[in-house]
């Protein structure tokens, strides 16, 4: 998508994070993270468990408060805004573990997603057109759905809010590899509409497939940044595990090879 070869820094980012420091109690979960997501870009944050990926995304959504640094959306500082205000402006997140409303039906979950929606192309009807099984099962409680189906509903709930930037936290978490393939297949369909996405993923191969830009985190710090085409598998592996010159020396814990 950003195959223009030019320096992306010359365009105005839709979402910008500057020198973000976030603490969980005493723990410094994020230590000076910066990133710039351009309109239409798919930006992937990769890293191992506990690297701070989810914390970064949750801070951008407004669920954590940074000790230092700022979050800018479309040029304005949103660091002090509550999550619901950010959602209203178009920063919409699919949280880790799906977090569907368990006592609500599929359709009601989508209706809550649309309750404070911005004007835009996504409607509940369009979500049903894209995932036709959902229309037939719209009256069911989400607990009766499989993990992959739940993840799709969570994605739909975020889309009907008509996000300007969509934050995806670990779409693949707890799903079988086949299902992950299918989810990412759907994601590519959605990305084709030109949506700006910032995603966090432990499954590096999936992230590299869809991303136009990646950043690797390790213990709250940036270890690698660049376009997928410009980084080698060895660089990614070293950045992911924090081992200098680790080529071929490690056993990937999530079963996916970078």
């Amino acid at each position: 998508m950003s195959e223009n070869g030019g320096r992306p820094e010359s365009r105005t980012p839709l979402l910008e994070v500057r020198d973000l420091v976030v603490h969980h109690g005493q723990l410094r979960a994020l230590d000076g993270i910066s990133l710039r997501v351009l309109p239409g870009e798919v930006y992937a944050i990769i890293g191992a468990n506990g690297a701070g990926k989810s914390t970064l995304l949750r801070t951008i959504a407004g669920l954590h408060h940074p000790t230092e640094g700022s979050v800018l959306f479309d040029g304005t500082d949103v660091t002090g805004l509550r999550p619901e205000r950010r959602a209203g402006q178009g920063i919409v997140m699919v949280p880790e573990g799906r977090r569907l409303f368990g006592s609500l039906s599929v359709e009601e979950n989508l209706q809550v997603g649309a309750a404070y929606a911005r004007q835009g192309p996504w409607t509940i009807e369009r979500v049903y057109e894209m995932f036709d099984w959902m229309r037939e099962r719209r009256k069911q409680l989400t607990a009766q759905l499989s993990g992959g189906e739940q993840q799709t509903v969570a994605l739909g709930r975020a889309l009907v809010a008509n996000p300007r930037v969509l934050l995806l936290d670990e779409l693949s978490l707890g799903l079988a590899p086949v299902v992950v393939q299918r989810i990412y297949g759907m994601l590519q369909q959605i990305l084709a509409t030109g949506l700006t996405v910032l995603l966090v993923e432990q499954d590096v191969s999936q992230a590299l497939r869809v991303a136009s830009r990646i950043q690797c985190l390790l213990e709250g710090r940036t270890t690698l940044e660049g376009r997928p085409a410009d980084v080698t598998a060895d660089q990614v592996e070293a950045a992911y595990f924090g081992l200098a010159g680790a080529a071929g020396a490690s056993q990937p814990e999530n079963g996916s090879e970078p």
Partner: protein
Amino acid sequence: MAWVNAIIQGVLIGGLYALFACGLSLMFGVMKVVNLAHGDLAVVAGYLAIGVIAVIHIPVLWSFLIVVPLMALLGYVMQRTILQGALDRSVLTTLMVTFGLSVVIENGLLQFFTANSRAIGTGLALVTGSFTIGSQIQIGYLPLVIFLVAVVVLLGLQYFLSASRYGRLIRAVADDKEAAQLAGADYRHVFGIAAAIAFGTVALAGIAYGMYSQLAPTTGTDTILLFAFAAVVIGGLGSLWGTLLGGVVLGVAQQIGAQISLSDELLAGFIVFLAVLVLRPQGLISRGAQS
């Protein structure tokens, strides 16, 4: 025949108990607040009605139209201020805050209105009138009207929660307030609406109780709160039908107890309450039917 009569009276008064209980259940279900001042709020509403009737000389029933919205507004404001402040600290803090509130309300009422008990609308045809079926069953107009109002209110509340936009948001926030925030919902506002409903329903029940029986500053904790808790526990949390059933079972148990011996009225109600707690702790109708 006396037993049939007892059961009918129990069912009718059970509607009022359910009306007391539904706000308690809603506030616990949505914001995890156990409102220990719930009964006192009913008494406050009753005293407000007495005051309104005395000061601006309106018909007794008109006081509902003034006091219920006023209490609902108070509910929204209190939720957005002290209750939210307590919630932001911890759920346990809300117990202390509502307990403190209960003490303050009771002593405030004692201070300004003395310990004498008061009734609302004594002498009204609705309050004193009754009709008879057969020779032994006598049904008062008031208990019948209260029961019907309670059923209509619970039906309305059920419909509101299951079909309206705000009802849906209330259920969503009760499930996962963080996820609701991510969908753009201000959960504090939604909490406020739930509290407004809870305060409004308990105000309605409080005035009705003042007409049915009488109110004293301590009625809130020694009667209303206990009955509301018992109805919620018997019926099962999270279901309005359960709450209605809980109220009715409590009412019937009390009336049957009273039929055996007048002093057994309260005892019989609480024996059923304990029996349910031991044998079926999730309540007669457990969650799953509806929020």
